[in-house]
């Protein structure tokens, strides 16, 4: 314990306007200045002084059970609220445990600030106890990262980190804080000068000449499709996107990350695009003459074979990140800019009134899409065993479609994307780019922290849930009433599905022969455990679980060998769908 910290915080002399503050005090003040009210973390030797200060501050702390859970929780908090999520962990293993969470946030452009403890500066490079070069390790999976070498730099770096994390294309930023930097006391006055990052100026405002070309393409188009991605949600462009779609009478599809950007109950909504996209979405994009892609990066899970993707379409690509444009697919009109600002400008330039006859002119295209929809709807047959799709549909019905939903990764995620129709941005929280199993439960905890009064649901698989099941203790300790529904098929279902379809049913290492009793496990953690084994039990069990006051784990034994359809085999054109 540093004896100096027992001294009064404000110096006695009024002649010196800058009080002597420790790095820990400066950090807490800087976090408060950024509006931080919640931190997810896990203490340890290198951050014990920070925790000592944190406990005295007004910032709430959520004690997770594993640092990966802290990052996913901060991520879920950020996705649900639109604010920057914050984590605090110790050096060495504490820091390395955050890497998967950081990479998850990086892949999905989620604003996070991850603060890691570090050994004192004089020990850096000496292979000290719990020393790891976390700045080096996370360089490829952070938007930017910092090693704070001097206490004098700390306040500026914190401010820069929050600015970088949340602006432009958002992403995680890591700050590595050596113990001596935290403990040193310096004369410190709050920063007043503006942030100076001469090489970082995201381009928000789109080029109007490009937008005029976009308008010309829209006017000519007979078969437009709007393709919305996570960028629409991150930039808060849903209202503008919806207005544009209705104004030009264009159907809308979305990437997994884009679900909720456009109302899932709107007649212009096509459902998700890509590998497990709807038949009509994949067909519509493949037959469109204009594709307006907003805040997307044309992931391989969306495009399938890129040469065949939207082959008849001219493509408009709106994105704040220039590297996203022309990375995976060629583009007719690139527009670098903030999605909301860009769509707002497009809508203004276009005017609210649709030209006469637009609705009639669009009819053949919408009719054709209707035919595709009638030919191959998303479907399943509920029989003797519980179908996972039925569980998701029942959850949608019982929650009135209003819950915040997180998922794990795999079949549970795809069925949720297909059968839970999301009407608002921030409602669907899933690890899209990195595909991180174990994401859903901690993310639900974070979302519940952001919205204590809303129903937060994690739709899980029996494999994924076990990757961060320990966070159930966090939910119980913090009184966070998250509801977990396990679609339990006793398999790593998505890999098993690939093995069934492409590996002659050789189920190599995908069967989970031994599973815990999830009901007892929930009870052991102090949560409520419920189980449904037959179709007629599903509704009552889910209704009971959703209505229960605290955290609940619902174990639903579903059809073991159900597959997610449609499915486009990896690398095939998206028109080549395997159907039910």
């Amino acid at each position, binding site marked *: 314990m540093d004896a100096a910290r027992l001294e009064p915080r404000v110096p006695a002399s009024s002649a010196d306007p800058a009080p002597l503050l420790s790095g820990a005090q400066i950090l807490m003040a800087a976090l408060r200045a950024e509006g931080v009210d919640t931190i997810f973390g896990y203490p340890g030797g290198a951050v014990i002084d920070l925790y000592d200060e944190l406990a005295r501050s007004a910032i709430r702390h959520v004690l997770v059970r594993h640092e990966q859970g802290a990052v996913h929780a901060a991520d879920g908090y950020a996705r649900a609220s639109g604010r920057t999520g914050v984590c605090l962990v110790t050096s060495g293993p504490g820091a390395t445990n955050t890497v998967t969470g950081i990479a998850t946030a990086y892949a999905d452009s989620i604003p996070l600030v991850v603060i890691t403890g570090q050994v004192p500066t004089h020990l850096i490079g000496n292979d000290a106890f719990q020393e790891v070069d976390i700045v*080096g390790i996370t*360089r490829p999976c952070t938007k*930017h990262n910092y*090693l704070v070498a001097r206490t004098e730099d700390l306040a500026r770096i914190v401010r820069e980190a929050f600015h970088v994390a949340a602006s432009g294309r958002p992403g995680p930023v890591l700050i590595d804080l050596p113990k001596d930097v935290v403990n040193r006391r310096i004369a410190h006055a709050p920063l007043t000068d503006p942030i100076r990052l001469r*090489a*970082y100026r995201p381009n928000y405002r789109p080029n109007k000449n490009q937008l005029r070309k976009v308008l010309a393409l829209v006017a000519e188009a007979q078969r437009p499709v709007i393709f919305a991605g996570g960028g629409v949600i991150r930039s808060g462009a849903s209202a503008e996107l919806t207005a544009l779609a209705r104004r030009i009478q264009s159907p809308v599809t979305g990437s997994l990350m884009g679900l909720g950007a456009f109302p899932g109950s709107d007649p212009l909504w096509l459902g998700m695009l890509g590998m497990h996209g709807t038949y009509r979405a994949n067909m519509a994009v493949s037959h469109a003459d204009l594709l307006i892609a907003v805040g997307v990066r044309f992931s391989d899970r969306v495009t399938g074979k890129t040469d065949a993707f939207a082959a008849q379409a001219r493509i408009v690509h709106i994105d704040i*990140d*220039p*590297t996203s444009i022309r*990375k995976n697919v060629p583009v007719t009109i690139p527009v670098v800019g903030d999605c909301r600002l860009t769509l707002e400008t497009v809508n203004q330039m276009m005017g609210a009134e649709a030209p006469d006859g637009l609705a009639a002119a669009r009819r053949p295209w919408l009719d054709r899409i209707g035919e595709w929809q009638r030919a191959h709807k998303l479907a399943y047959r509920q029989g003797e065993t519980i179908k996972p799709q039925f569980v998701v549909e029942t959850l949608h019905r019982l929650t009135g479609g209003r819950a915040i939903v997180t998922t794990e990764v795999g079949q549970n995620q795809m069925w949720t994307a297909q059968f839970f129709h999301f009407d608002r941005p921030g409602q669907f929280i899933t690890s899209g780019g990195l595909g991180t199993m174990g994401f859903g439960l901690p993310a639900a905890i974070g979302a519940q922290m952001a919205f204590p009064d809303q129903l937060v649901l994690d739709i899980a698989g029996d494999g994924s849930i076990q990757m961060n099941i320990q966070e159930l203790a966090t939910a119980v300790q913090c009184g966070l009433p998250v509801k977990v529904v396990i679609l339990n098929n006793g398999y790593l279902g998505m890999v098993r599905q690939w093995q069934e379809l492409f590996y002659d049913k050789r189920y190599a290492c995908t069967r989970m022969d031994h599973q815990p009793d999830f009901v007892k496990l929930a009870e052991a953690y102090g949560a409520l455990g419920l189980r449904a084994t037959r179709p007629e039990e599903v509704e009552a069990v889910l209704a009971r679980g959703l209505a229960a006051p605290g955290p609940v784990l619902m174990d639903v034994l579903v059809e073991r060998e159900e597959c997610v359809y449609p499915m486009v085999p990896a690398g095939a054109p998206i028109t080549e769908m395997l159907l039910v």
Partner: protein
Amino acid sequence: MTAERHIFTMLVDNEPGVLSRVVGLFSGRGFNIESLCVAETIDPKISRITLVTMANPPVIEQIEKQLNKLINVIKVRDLSGDDAVKREMALICVQARPEHRAEILRIVDIFRCKVVDVGLAHYIIEVTGTEGKLTALLNLLRPMGIKKIARTGTVALLREPN
């Protein structure tokens, strides 16, 4: 699409880890680095990196965009055209047998380079020039036996407008 050779020059913050960010970008995304040259500029807070790469045009576009995206990269320029001066330096240790000594010195004279170290059986030659000049010199010296070589990689500067 055919691969093209491009010379990128960039001004970067002169801070620890910045070179690693640039190099890590290349290795992580599978871009190739033919040569790399880094040193402080007249402003001690800023370094200049000159980097030569080979890639097809869409990848070159990605490289330039990805470099610009790095927070510590202040400015990137593609100096592949004629409006830039490009030079490389090499130190070449060549075997100098009695029958070759005069011939080597003649070559050194023709190429306007310098002998900076002499021994009973070797010369070390310092040469500066375009990559073509260095290649031509190496081709002439190779038959004598090149013992060691150290090359700087290309540095380049945009010409000032007249």
